[in-house]
């Protein structure tokens, strides 16, 4: 894992001291709320429905055992015994007191954590594929570049007051697990025709009120030029974005207004200027120095088949079921990637208790795991698990109530905090996720349905990624009452697509039933090997729309 150097440590310490003074000045009346708000937002502190909310950065979703224990400590000492993992791979605490936040940040700084740039109109925490460094599919670990982007973008004087927030993700595989095409800017590690390693850069993706899938800005950027190219995109955005209308300030609006071709032209011009000045070259040795922090553990030479794993799988049906859904292929023989679902049936997607966090840290220590990952789908990942250890780890996860066997299935639902917590929300998300999960709780039925990604947002800001759901659900407010719009056919993967809105919304009691009718229609209509998304793409909205509204139509007539 990356370790702070003296500059990083001093920078974070100074920031804590600075914020402590800002809080004192606010409490003493020297700063008004209008003056204080941008300062607290720059430190991830929001005021929500019931209390403040503190969003803590988990750079590229990677955490050490020590950091997990610190998050557990914060949950216990300053909050209400739990935290919430978000679609940005961050952690949110829903109940901190303003007066405690400087102490929380000081505690976090002791384990190299902070809340800097988790809010505000700046470059936000960089996200990455949760299988980084572990999957055989990848060209190289994307996290060294994430870390370099983090260092380049932290308190970047030019990009600290952008028109709006700016989100960057990095991936290194064909199969996109990081929703790259829905980011303001995304980098994919690629080889060019000569087999040289470099980066494909996309920009202008985003969700929210006006969803767009990103455009490719440049097919291939040389490694040493990557910061220069990213800076060129940011400069064009910073200079040309509209600042007069909050709904038109993201880079996606700029690119789609002037067209991707014109954007590419403006970026190329800027890029040439930066290159000509000779600044912002990324030396290979610096890249290698950072990459060394992310070196994988020494993998033992193991046969790919583990007798212990196969025996446990044969005798324990529940373990076999968990293994089928929650394990992914690892690059090293005899190892697996284990996804820990934070979606128990009836639970709150992404929530994790202090005891669970401590328990995971204990498992990491006991089995010699240096790191654990957070996924944008609000789950966790143990990236390098020996197959021989899987049953023992599974047993411990089960004792922690962390052994839900539903990764990638219909009950593995993304949901934002929604109106249960969020000041911006129009409707609740979590109870809808819970109702749907309960409806499809039967594990055999889930497996029969197969891969189906449901994503729920409680407002148009789309923190729950509803545009990218195979089935997306958007909560809206109709005269003070919660309604839910269905969207079908979205995807956040390499086949990214924006879901199509079905029609009028359903009320909170109807929505789970409507989803069930849509899924039942899929089961009847699917052809061999088709996922829900494939069937939808083949047949379109009509057959699903008919069944979704069936009951309502009958009632109306």
């Amino acid at each position: 894992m990356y370790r702070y150097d003296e500059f990083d440590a001093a920078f974070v310490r100074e920031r804590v001291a600075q914020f402590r003074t800002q809080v004192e000045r606010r409490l003493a009346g020297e700063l008004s709320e209008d003056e204080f708000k941008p300062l607290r937002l720059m430190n991830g502190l929001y005021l929500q429905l019931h209390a403040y909310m503190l969003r803590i950065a988990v750079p590229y979703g990677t955490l050490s055992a020590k950091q997990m224990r610190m998050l557990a400590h914060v949950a216990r000492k300053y909050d209400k015994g739990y935290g919430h993992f978000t679609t940005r791979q961050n952690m949110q605490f829903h109940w901190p007191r303003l007066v405690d936040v400087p102490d929380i940040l000081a505690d976090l700084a002791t384990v190299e954590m902070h809340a800097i740039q988790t809010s505000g109109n700046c470059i936000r925490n960089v996200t990455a594929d949760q299988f980084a460094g572990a999957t055989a599919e990848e060209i190289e670990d994307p996290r060294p570049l994430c870390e370099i982007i983090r260092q380049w973008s932290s308190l970047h004087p030019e990009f600290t007051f952008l028109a709006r927030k700016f989100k960057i993700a990095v991936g290194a595989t064909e199969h996109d697990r990081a929703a790259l095409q829905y980011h303001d800017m995304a980098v994919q590690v690629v080889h060019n025709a000569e087999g040289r390693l470099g980066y494909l850069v996309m920009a202008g993706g985003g969700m929210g009120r006006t969803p767009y899938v990103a455009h490719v800005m440049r097919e291939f950027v040389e490694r040493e030029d990557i910061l220069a190219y990213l800076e060129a995109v940011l400069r064009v955005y910073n200079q040309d974005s509209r600042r007069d209308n909050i709904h038109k300030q993201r880079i996606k609006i700029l690119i789609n207004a002037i067209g991707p071709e014109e954007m590419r032209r403006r970026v190329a011009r800027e890029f040439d200027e930066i290159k000509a000045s000779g600044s912002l070259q990324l030396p290979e040795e610096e890249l290698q120095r950072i990459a060394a922090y992310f070196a994988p553990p020494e993998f033992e030479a193991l046969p790919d088949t583990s007798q212990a794993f196969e025996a446990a799988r044969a005798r324990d049906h529940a373990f076999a079921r968990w293994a089928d859904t929650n394990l992914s292929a690892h690059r090293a023989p005899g190892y697996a990637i284990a996804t820990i679902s934070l979606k128990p049936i009836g639970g709150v997607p992404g929530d994790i208790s202090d005891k669970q966090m401590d328990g995971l840290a204990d498992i990491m220590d006991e089995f010699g795991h240096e790191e654990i990952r957070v996924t944008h789908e609000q789950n966790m990942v143990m990236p390098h698990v020996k197959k021989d250890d899987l049953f023992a780890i599974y047993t411990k996860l089960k004792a922690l109530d962390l052994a839900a066997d539903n990764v990638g299935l219909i009950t593995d639902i993304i949901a934002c905090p929604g109106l249960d917590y969020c000041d911006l929300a129009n409707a609740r998300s979590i109870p809808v996720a819970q109702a749907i999960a309960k409806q499809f709780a039967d594990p055999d039925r889930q497996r029969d349905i197969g891969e189906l990604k449901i994503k729920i947002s409680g407002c148009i800001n789309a923190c729950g990624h509803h545009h990218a759901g195979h089935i997306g659900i958007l909560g809206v407010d109709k005269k003070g009452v919660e309604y839910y719009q269905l969207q079908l056919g979205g995807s956040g993967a390499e086949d990214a697509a924006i879901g199509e809105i079905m029609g009028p919304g359903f009320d909170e009691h109807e929505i789970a039933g409507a989803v069930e009718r849509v899924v039942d229609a899929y089961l009847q209509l699917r052809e061999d090997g088709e996922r829900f998304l494939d069937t939808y793409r083949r047949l379109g909205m009509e057959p699903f729309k008919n069944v979704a509204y069936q009951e309502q139509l009958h009632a109306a007539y």
Partner: protein
Amino acid sequence: MAQKTKTGFQILTANRLRDGAVLYWKDGAWVDALADADVFESAEAADAALEAGRGFVRNQYVVTPYLFDVVLDKGTVKPVREREIIRAAGPTIRTDLGKQAKPSLEAFDVSI
């Protein structure tokens, strides 16, 4: 200026600066429970309370005071919007937390 609404009843609310807790206006001061809050029948009374409540912004006790609509249902005050119902109680999916939590279950000390 407060708008006269169709229900005609309003309550004044804000969040406490130090901890963000939801507060309601009663008799020139702030209380914890919606049920204890003053219910204003006239826009003039609501506006006067809002103006008085803003004094507590100036002395750093609360932030963002605002009025919201309520209906009286069999003698009980009920907010019109779901948002205010949830603010008054706590998360609907964690009834052990927030104002709805029984004090004995509420280990977290919000007193300051």
